[in-house]
């Protein structure tokens, strides 16, 4: 179980976040919704443990994976190495499997710079899921993609989450994405930002 309990986060004198608490059960997905600039990425940095300077407590699992807004690959290493260097316990076979699951196993030997942006994002997804994460963190994973590609990525992500079953936290400014993927949506608002509304997913066919 992931527990997030942030009392206060400030940069110098400016308070960014206050009183944000929620839990995420294994296999469920939480979306953090909010306008850009509200402090969503700050919140994710705290949840991911990238930033540890805050008041409060966050309980995480051992195996964590992250998908950034940009692919954030190592451009000087092959696509396959981008997976195996991050997950050193993983053999080349399992890494190729992970690439196969996102449909780009034929690009394994190329450098990321030789791939399109959409393919690079698939590598980032493969990297995230290859380690069988217990907690998956995604920062605007579908932003700045054209609608068709965004839809493909959304479907793919949905499928990978269902197969792997991590606790997932993702931030987005697009309500449509949140409603599509999340079991629970928390909307951030105000200054300092806090949770203003909390709603479970409405439609389940």
């Amino acid at each position, binding site marked *: 179980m992931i527990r997030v309990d942030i009392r206060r986060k400030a940069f110098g004198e400016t308070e960014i976040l206050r009183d944000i608490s929620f839990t995420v059960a294994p296999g469920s997905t939480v979306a953090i919704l909010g306008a850009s600039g509200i402090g969503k990425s700050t919140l994710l*940095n705290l949840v*991911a*443990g*990238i930033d540890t300077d805050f008041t409060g407590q966050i309980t995480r699992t051992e195996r*964590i*994976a*992250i998908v*950034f807004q*940009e692919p*954030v690959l*190592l*451009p*000087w*290493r092959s696509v396959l*190495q981008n997976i195996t*260097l*991050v*997950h*050193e316990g993983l053999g080349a076979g399992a890494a190729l499997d992970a690439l196969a699951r996102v449909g780009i196993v034929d690009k394994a030997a190329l*450098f990321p*710079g*030789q791939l399109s942006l959409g393919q690079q994002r698939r590598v980032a997804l493969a*990297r995230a899921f290859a*380690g069988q994460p217990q907690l998956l*963190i995604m920062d605007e994973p579908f932003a700045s993609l054209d609608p068709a590609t965004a839809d493909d990525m959304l479907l793919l992500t949905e499928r990978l989450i269902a197969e792997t079953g991590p606790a997932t936290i993702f931030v987005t400014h697009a309500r449509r994405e949140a409603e599509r993927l999340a079991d629970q949506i928390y909307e951030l608002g105000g200054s300092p930002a806090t949770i203003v509304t909390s709603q479970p997913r409405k439609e389940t066919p």
Partner: protein
Amino acid sequence: MKWPHLSPAAIPLLSLLALLGLWIGAAALTGDAEILPMPGALLEPFWRELTSGALPYHLAHTGLRVLWAFALAMTIGTVLGLVMGSYPAVDRWLDPWLVVFLNLPALVLIVLCYLWIGLNETAAIIAVTLNKIPNVTTILREGARARDPNLRAMAQVFGMRRVTYLRHVLIPQLAPFIAGAARSGIAVIWKIVLVVEFLGRSNGVGFQIHLYFQLFNVALVLVYSLSFIAVMLLVEWLLLQPIERHVRRWRAP
């Protein structure tokens, strides 16, 4: 007027030939082999020095000093640059020192090292190293500042091992800066090594130049300096450039 179309490989060659032509012209005008011998007149003394073993002996001594000073300056300068680029508090304290050392003439450091440490190998290598460190530090500090914070965050969240991070994330990011520091480094270091040898060593190319300077033997001064230039050009072409090409191969052509 339209320039004839030349292949890119031919231009440096022609340019060097023009330099040789300039030399021949100047030597002809001087008309005194004591002051400026013809290029061809250097072959005989070159061959004599080579076969007597003197040239290889002194080249090897200078080469070893260059290698030592280069390795020390690159290592210490890289570490210092990384620390200064990563921690602004340290940078504020050390930056004035950097400015002082960057503006300290090489000659002053060399003389002080010889005075304080003695006329020995340690002093020679320390003097050259100290001369080069500030430069490497400045370049690597820029490299440290230009790092992508997202890559660091990614490595941290996925729990990448430190050794892996160093080898596959940090060093490749710094590679262009390390290569830049290395190339400008080797060029500066060998020139300072010659001065160090000139002032206080009893072997090496700089010592030989000192000797033939006192004997007013321009031919041998030229033989020794040109031989060492040739060695450094070979290092550049056969070692540094291929390494750089290999490290850069991931960039789209």
